[in-house]
């Protein structure tokens, strides 16, 4: 992670007294940062605690009062939710969409990225400019026409339809990111492989993909999180096929009492992205940086 490079390297010539002095001088800073960090966690913790309180307790007391009445906490909301057929189906649908989209974007993006980086064909640069132009196109531009087209081709309200929409809008970034990463790979390795008579497919599978793994990992995590967290696309193209966000949204009308469904379901919906985030934090940040700074 980037913070590692920012960690201060202690100067061996510093005396203990100087170190102590500096530490004291910086105490207010530490306190400030601790407060900010805690404040930043409050909403997430609040959601979690809300999710483990019964609805009747929440109607009259704030979630933080669990600290004085720990006995009110219960897992019953969660156990009820895991017996809820609709929620489990929604969770499964979410997983299908997120995984399917991630795989497709990575494969298609890597292929195109490789073509743009190392293969020659006429109009390559122009095509790439087109990809760059597509980077910022809002997906609202495609909702209405694709709604019609999906209707015609039977893709409406299918997992595949939702996946393909995500894939298309994930591709410009994927191609862009991977092409830039592949371009930076050492040219001589590729050249010697070609001289050895390896086909482009073999080079792609045996050389490019393994070497490009860091960038591919970043991309995969981004895509996974993006589709897992999506609301708008699924809201538009799914009616019976709904991921978890849309499922929770359909429960929202009852906000207030069915908070005992919404809160735990929301928390479940964010557990997976959080795990992915913590497990692959390094790649996540790398992808972010690759996408935004030189």
């Amino acid at each position: 992670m980037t913070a590692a490079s920012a960690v201060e390297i202690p100067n061996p010539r510093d005396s203990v007294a100087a170190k102590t002095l500096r530490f004291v001088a910086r105490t207010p800073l530490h306190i400030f940062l601790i407060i900010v960090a805690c404040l930043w966690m409050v909403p997430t913790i609040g959601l979690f605690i809300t999710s483990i309180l019964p609805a009747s307790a929440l109607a009259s007391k704030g979630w933080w009062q669990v600290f004085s009445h720990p006995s009110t906490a219960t897992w019953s909301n969660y156990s009820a939710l895991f017996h809820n057929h609709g929620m489990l189906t929604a969770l499964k649908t979410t997983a299908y969409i997120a995984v399917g989209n991630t795989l497709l974007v990575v494969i298609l993006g890597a292929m195109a990225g490789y073509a743009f980086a190392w293969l020659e064909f006429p109009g390559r640069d122009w095509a790439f400019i087109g990809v760059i132009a597509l980077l910022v196109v809002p997906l609202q531009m495609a909702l209405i026409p694709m709604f019609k087209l999906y209707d015609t081709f039977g893709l409406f309200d299918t997992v595949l339809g939702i996946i393909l929409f995500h894939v298309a809008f994930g591709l410009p970034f994927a191609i862009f990111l991977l092409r830039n990463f592949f371009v930076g790979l050492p040219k001589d390795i590729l050249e010697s492989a070609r001289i050895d008579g390896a086909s482009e497919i073999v080079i792609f599978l045996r050389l490019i993909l393994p070497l490009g793994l860091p960038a591919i990992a970043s991309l995969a995590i981004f895509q996974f999180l993006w589709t897992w967290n999506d609301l708008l696309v699924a809201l538009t193209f799914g009616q019976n096929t709904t991921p978890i966000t849309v499922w929770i949204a359909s429960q929202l009308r009852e906000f207030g009492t069915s908070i005992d469904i919404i809160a735990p379901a929301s928390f479940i919906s964010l557990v997976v992205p959080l795990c992915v985030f913590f497990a692959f934090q390094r790649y996540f940040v790398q992808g972010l940086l690759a996408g935004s700074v030189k």
Partner: protein
Amino acid sequence: MSAGGITAEPPVVAAPPPSAEPGRLGRYLVGAVFLAPALFMLVVWMVYPAIYTIVRSFFGQTGFLGTWVGIDNYKTLFTTSTLLTAIKNNALWVAVVPAFVTAVGLIFAVLTERVRWAVVFKTFVFLPMAISAFATGVTWRIMYQQDPGLGAVNALGKTVSGVFSPAGVLSSASPSTPGLQATSSGALVLKTPAHPGSVVLLGLTGIAPDQVPKSAAQAVAPAAKQGDIVGTVWRDFKPGGGKAGVVEKQELGLPGVTVDLRDASGKTVQSAKTQTDGTFDFAKVPAGTYTTAIGAQTFAKPFGGYAWLGPKLIVPSLFIAYIWIWAGFAMVVIGAGLAAMPRDVLEAARTDGATELQVFRRVTVPLLAPVLSVVFITMIINVLKVFDIVYALAPQSEYGKANVIALAMYFTAFQGGGNFGVGSAIAVFLFLLVIPVLALNIRRFKRDA
């Protein structure tokens, strides 16, 4: 979060020039094979729809290319009040949020730069980035509830305000007779003047049974006392309402209320506390005309909480939640820029005797300018497309006030509205707004390539 939106200004390295080798046609073919699937997706899902939407925006609300309406849909966009609110709100988003996100990110990045536990801090602040904007909406909806007993934000406000202006013992009470009048300060004053020997009845209603002190006993209207002004403060209510201004059976005295005796000039000359039966006694009052009053502090309202999700505050509430999500992104990107900065320049400035603030303003910020602008532009794109959090956080009764372009587009085209013509026009308008960034990206690529 939008995958496309994450990138504002792409860094680009030129691809190696195609080498002139034999079998060029075959190589072209290989390139085409590698490119075809992605190209197919892009053309069918992005290029074709974009053209369709632009064309569609000049046609009426239903039917494929039904009725040509010219620019009527765009006129509708700029004359319908809910759509105008959406455009105005988005302008406000662009004006406020990117600047705040960048500023907060910069502050956090600089402050944590030389802190050992920065990783922990950054993880905490960055964590909301992994959560869906929708779940964030649900989360903040819980935080923003108006009742300070339920919403954490208002609970904090209540704790703070409780220190400065504590709630009175009878905060919800109101006078039972028109003779007892509220002053501008919130005190209740009995209009009828009192003299030594008078009996003063101060009846109050609107007090819930559980707010009546436990020690309260049946109210008593005291007998007149020579030279004293006596009276009673009581809950002038019994089941069914009772007779206003008359102390009746089943009506309870209100103990512990401070009653002031004011002279003709309005100056308080005596104060008395009520007994369990509500009675009080101003002893040995010199002859003259007096008024009786119950001080404003008795009725001070407890902090009722701000309506964060109400019409006035819903937009700022959305901003706060959104900044909560994206500050981590800005911090990490700016932090990386900071780490890549030449140390010697900073050290040189410090050696020259510049204060930390001067170093920050004169050296750090200018050197970081490219990174800051990347964050800023990325955020502009993101807030132009903002949708999920508004959908989840704003109560339905405030969709009108919280409206943004993406939400308006969805509602117009798909929810109830069913108007594909105006929906397309809104989408095209949104597209026009991101075109400057699109042009910037292409210029950058051309320059670098």
